């Protein structure tokens, strides 16, 4: 049985990408398997863990709860899109290294997307706002404290204009 294929054109990390997808192909599967953007992780595949978070038109969403065909005409930012154009880590990513905001790394892409979305909207978040922003992202290693520290550090560095 052959499935119907749909043509899509999506701006991914600033570049227009086109593809042919079956309706049931999730956005995260398309990003990982068709575009080889494997930075976005698949954890639970039913909208609980947050590892697959990406930005859709600038707002964080779960890419396992969207079909790729639904992203047609929209813009997506994945964790690969957070680094600087020269490939160096962003301030936020570097702060995760600095504050040991990761261990196994599985939740990290989702945490980074959630944190970046928070800092985009609110450059000086309180600890409570940081915890709320990552409330939809599960981490089984860190106990969250270092992730919260990392995001706070990134906010501080951005405010100070530090590299």
């Amino acid at each position, binding site marked *: 049985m052959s499935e119907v294929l749909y043509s899509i054109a999506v701006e991914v990390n600033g570049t227009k990408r086109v593809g042919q997808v079956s309706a049931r192909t999730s956005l995260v599967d398309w990003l990982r398997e068709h575009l080889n953007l494997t930075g976005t992780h698949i954890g639970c595949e039913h909208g609980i863990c947050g590892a697959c978070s990406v930005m859709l038109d600038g707002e964080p969403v*779960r890419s396992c709860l969207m079909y790729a065909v*639904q992203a047609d005409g929209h813009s997506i930012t994945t964790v690969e899109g957070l680094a600087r154009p020269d490939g160096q880590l962003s301030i936020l990513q570097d702060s995760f290294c600095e504050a040991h905001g990761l261990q196994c790394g599985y939740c990290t892409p989702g945490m980074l997307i959630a944190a970046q979305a928070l800092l985009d909207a609110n450059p000086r978040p309180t600890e409570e706002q940081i915890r709320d922003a990552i409330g*939809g992202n599960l981490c089984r290693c860190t106990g969250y404290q270092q992730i919260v520290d990392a995001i706070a550090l990134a906010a501080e560095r951005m405010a100070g204009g530090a590299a």
Partner: protein
Amino acid sequence: MKSPPFEYARTASIEEACELLSQHGDAAKVIAGGQSLVPMLAFRLLRPGWLIDINEIAALKFVAFETDTVRMGACTRQCVVARDDALAARVPLLRQALAFVGHTQTRNRGTVGGSLAHADPSAELPLVAQILEARLVLRTKSAKRTLPAAEFFAGPMMTNLQPDECLEEIHWPVWREQKTGSAFTEISRRHGDFAMVAATAQIAVDDDGQCTRVTFGVGGAAPVPLAFPALAQNLVGRRLDKAKARAVAQEAAAALEPDTDTHASAAYRRHLAGVLVSRVLLEAYDTARSAP
């Protein structure tokens, strides 16, 4: 798991969506935010032949203020509703309830109409619709009808939406009383999860602190979210204190027949309902009294 195969139609208007629903009937499901529907497909609880996507219909995304009503398009996103200060001034319960709904990532995608049409008995927005007596505008290819929330919810994950109908608008009543207060609370395992039990109330008072209008309800403790209009009516013309709130809450809790599941026993749910109703009644009352 991955979703089972289906065919997909992105629609540009409610007319187009209704036309497709009339063609495919039971075989089609409308997809709005998909935050509950997609997991159900992933679990293979549903195998629709078609998904009719209404996400790109601009006409289904609006919030319009009228004298006694806020009209809202069914595909209005939860994040948009939560951010809207003018809306929060008119129907404060929406923002209060949304604080308990999912997380940033799900509220960015999830819609108000989707939550109502999904009709999870523990969900927050259906409970608010029930106690405020929201009205739901349902549309087919050739007809339109309006159902009060009480007639819309039919059971757990069940509504009286017909297979060829699409939820188009929600009309939220605005209480014009100057001194109005509302409250929403719930207990769940983790913040953002569906409630084991949720409770909400809205109360208007006069200058002497007597209740002039009362509504309250409980979610998660029955097949549909429940309002208690008769018990609420008993409070009209009276002042509320701790003892009275507790007594009314106990009466409401005693009328519930909750289920036992892996999250909570029936007895615990009934207990929670009593405690939480008492809390929201007092909070709504105090807020109303201290309103200017």
